[in-house]
């Protein structure tokens, strides 16, 4: 099923067109990796798709439709983790997880926290975490969400190698369950099949 279809998308910032028009579709069970140089406009594309940034040309169709309703429908299915992640510095790890993912059963929480090796700092304020640990708190949503469309902006930056492989594992599991992923990254992926879109 066509989740998203982007046609000749252009974005302007400060009256400068960022990249040459881009066209792609996102299907169920598919992973799209957007690559490009620093400042090419990858993050901007993701935010435009989510409707947070206005586009200057082209069109984006959600779930095959153009209407507001289909956009709302689409948004309900989305999980977004951007450069800024919604993790609150003055809440503890546990509190952030409930904030971002709603109330959690204890076993769920323990499982995901162990997987991400956050078990030791569950009650620590996020202000006091290292760069990678803070990222991991945000990434916990990958295991706790029920959304089927994942929009991830450099999810593996500043993760160590075990962190990277955990995240890639989550992506693969998600595809197997029929989910879809659209992501940016500068690092090489070890995932077998993905569609690459180059922005320039």
């Amino acid at each position, binding site marked *: 099923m066509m989740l998203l279809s982007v046609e000749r998308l252009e974005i302007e910032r400060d009256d400068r067109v960022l990249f040459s028009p881009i066209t792609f579709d996102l299907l169920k069970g598919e992973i799209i990796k957007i690559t490009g140089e620093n400042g090419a406009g990858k993050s901007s594309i993701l935010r435009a798709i989510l409707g947070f940034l206005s586009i200057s040309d082209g069109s984006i169709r959600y779930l095959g439709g153009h209407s507001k309703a289909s956009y709302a429908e689409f948004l309900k299915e989305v999980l*977004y983790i951007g450069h800024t*992640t919604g993790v*609150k*510095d*003055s*809440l503890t790890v546990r509190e952030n997880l409930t904030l971002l993912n*709603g109330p959690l059963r204890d076993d769920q929480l323990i499982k995901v926290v162990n997987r991400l090796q956050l078990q030791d700092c569950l009650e620590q304020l996020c202000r006091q975490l290292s760069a990678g640990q803070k990222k991991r708190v945000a990434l916990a949503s990958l295991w706790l969400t029920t959304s089927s469309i994942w929009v991830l902006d450099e999810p593996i930056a500043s993760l160590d190698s075990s962190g990277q492989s955990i995240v890639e594992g989550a992506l693969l599991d998600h595809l197997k369950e029929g989910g879809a992923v659209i992501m940016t990254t500068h690092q090489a992926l070890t995932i077998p099949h993905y569609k690459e879109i180059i922005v320039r």
Partner: protein
Amino acid sequence: MTYFSVLQAECRLALRRKQDIANSLLFFVVVIMLFPIGVSASPSFLAPASSGIIWCAACLASMLALDGIFREDLSDGSIDQWRINGLMVAFVVLGKVLIRWVTFIVPLLVLVPFCGFALSLPPSLMLDTIFSLLVGTPTLFLLAAIGASVTATLRNGAVLMILIVVPLYLPVLIFSTGYVKASDLGVPGNGQIALLLAFLLVTLVLSPFFCSVSLKASAE
């Protein structure tokens, strides 16, 4: 992320920042202290001015209490997350302002009697002052929220906004102190209270909407 989890987290933050709450009240006390020391400490000057000073301090304290209410949400990407999760920004704003107001007004009402003593407020006006604060401060909070949403990133137009917000503060100040003065003269102040309630209603509807517009624009 649901309305519930967002507001729960907000309550947690409020409790974690008990100190913040205590602080904005101390601020209130401190402002009140400045006046007798900086202007004049004689009861004949203070007594007629006291309810006005209390109201001025409440205006200032409310602005400070809301300063930065959205700044963190914007910089840590929370606003994006609300929208992704289908929450209406306006409602979240309303909830946040409400929580701030409750944590502000309850201890304030405890403090006002003491401040009243210190400023030689006539005891007969104590209850009226408290009542006017109860009715008037929610409007102040809703108005200040607009200012906070605009200054969350500090793009252009903030001057304009403050210039818009402050004149809106004035009617609240005028009618609530007017109410207290009327009681002082023994005249019923129903008219003023009705007007204050009308303001409250209008801002209750409009403020969350304006906040949501400017927050969305700031998050582009």
